[in-house]
């Protein structure tokens, strides 16, 4: 399935990526090529096939609802590009 420029811009927005004007053509072509590769799977009839989400039949392990992690807030926030008073700083959301 071939994509057009508007669709590529929409996908980029959903993924929170910025694609510049000069890149749009190339990105559109590449993604269209990849979708053509992917579409090869449409040639097989899978109506009666049960989807496989995961290679093993696993049961989710449960644990007691107890706090086991130690508080490392200060240490972890040192990694942030911007933080203050235990909070992560981002550009102003509301004026």
């Amino acid at each position, binding site marked *: 399935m071939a*994509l057009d420029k508007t669709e*590529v811009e929409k*996908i*980029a927005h*959903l*993924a*929170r*990526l*910025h*694609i510049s004007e000069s890149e749009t053509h190339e*990105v559109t072509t*590449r*993604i269209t*090529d*990849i*979708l*053509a*590769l*992917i*579409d*090869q*799977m*449409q040639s*097989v009839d*899978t109506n009666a*096939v*049960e*989807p*496989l*989400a*995961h*290679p*093993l039949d*696993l049961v*989710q*392990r449960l*644990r007691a609802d107890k706090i086991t992690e130690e508080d*490392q807030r200060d*240490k*972890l926030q040192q*990694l*942030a*590009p*911007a933080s203050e008073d235990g909070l*992560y700083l*981002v*550009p*102003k*959301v509301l004026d």
Partner: protein
Amino acid sequence: MINSTVAEISAALAAGDISSVEITQAYLDRIATLNGELNAFITVCEDSALLAAKAADEARANGLDSPLLGIPLAHKDIFCTKDILTTCGSRMLHNFVSPYNATVVERFNDAGTVLLGKTNMDEFAMGSSNETSFFGDVKNPWNTECVPGGSSGGSAAAVAADLCAMATGTDTGGSIRQPAAFCGVTGMKPSYGRVSRWGMIAFASSLDQAGPLAKSAEDAALMLNVMSGLDKKDSTSIDRPIEDFTASLNQPLKGIRIGIPKQHFAEGLSREVEQAVRDALTEYEKLGAIIKEVDLTNSHLSVSAYYVVAPAEASANLSRFDGVRYGYRCEDPVNLEDMYKRTRSEGFGEEVKRRIMIGTYALSAGFYDAYYRKAQKIRRLIKDDFDRAFTEVDVIIGPTSPHTAFKLGSKSDPVSMYLEDIYTIAVNLAGLPAASIPVGIANGLPMGMQIIGKYFDEAKILNVAHQFQQHTDWHKQKSTAITAASGES
């Protein structure tokens, strides 16, 4: 000693013929000589390596002994290492110093290994040539004009060039096996769930698995002994009895049934690789194996299904990189959306962005059934093919890659790069274990043979690999180019 196997170094350490400090220093010297050319390491931990080696020697003097005590290794830069830069090959994490260790790292530390450094890789493990790394291409030690394969290209090149005794890698669609084949080393992707994924930066969570890159099947078994086992921090880690993967290495192969998938010997396979694998099969027949053709009918659909499943999972996993809590943030964002978009567009490379886009599209409203659900159905068909084949055979053998390492920069089109993993991807979709071992040399470049096993039958794969290595010496071949360049004898 640096070109020795882990088993040999371990014996020399135990006998007191060499100290961990001496062998560690020898690898550090070798890295200093060759890494400029190969670019296999992103980070070298010289000071902490020597401290760890000293600690290992002291522990041994105090009576401690374990197979990997004092053995120098390298970790792929996808594993979080406490207080050490962990980049995942990306600008997004170019400044990320991990606050904790991945379980795999923790287990090797507990075994007394010495961390030499972190190896280069395709960005977020997305690539088959190591060319998508933000930190530059890795060169193949056999021919520095060629790629080492990917995504664990730095680890494979480091093992091949004797920059370390062993290295870790990860494999989502072939990322251990294909570079192992291209660099002439032994690599294994264990069964899904065998090795904890905790602290291993996630690409496609239902496919990712960590494994060893080593100089022999025996070394891979020694590494797997340390790496594998239940980890409560990874909900997909499997609770199985502890195994010693070295225990059955010497089992005779008489009567073993080896399956040959006709689809892996079809159009697209180079003549040299086909011949090398067929010669290996003749060797196995001499050892008493029974060779039988098997049919993996849907294997031609594996690449298509993979390029839905892996990007879809990646698009979700990589949404965490938003410039808020760690890693790269763009300069002077005007608002929150601008910060997200520019951080991600500047922090991620082209291939990563492409896969996030594909995954986002496949999961977007109205397309789920046509793409993700369809791919999961194909995934079932592929698993069923293997299940059927394994009722008739014990292991499946074929080529790891259709050809030897290609030239750097020669595959600019993503689809042709994706088709590189044509023989390896189905194994990840099914969650099976598989290894690649050296099986020959053509035009100065090594070739690899893939051995696929049943679920949790790593021991059988390693047995089959080890027996081959007892009767051939392809795994001992070294690039003369590198040996000459470093002045080693």
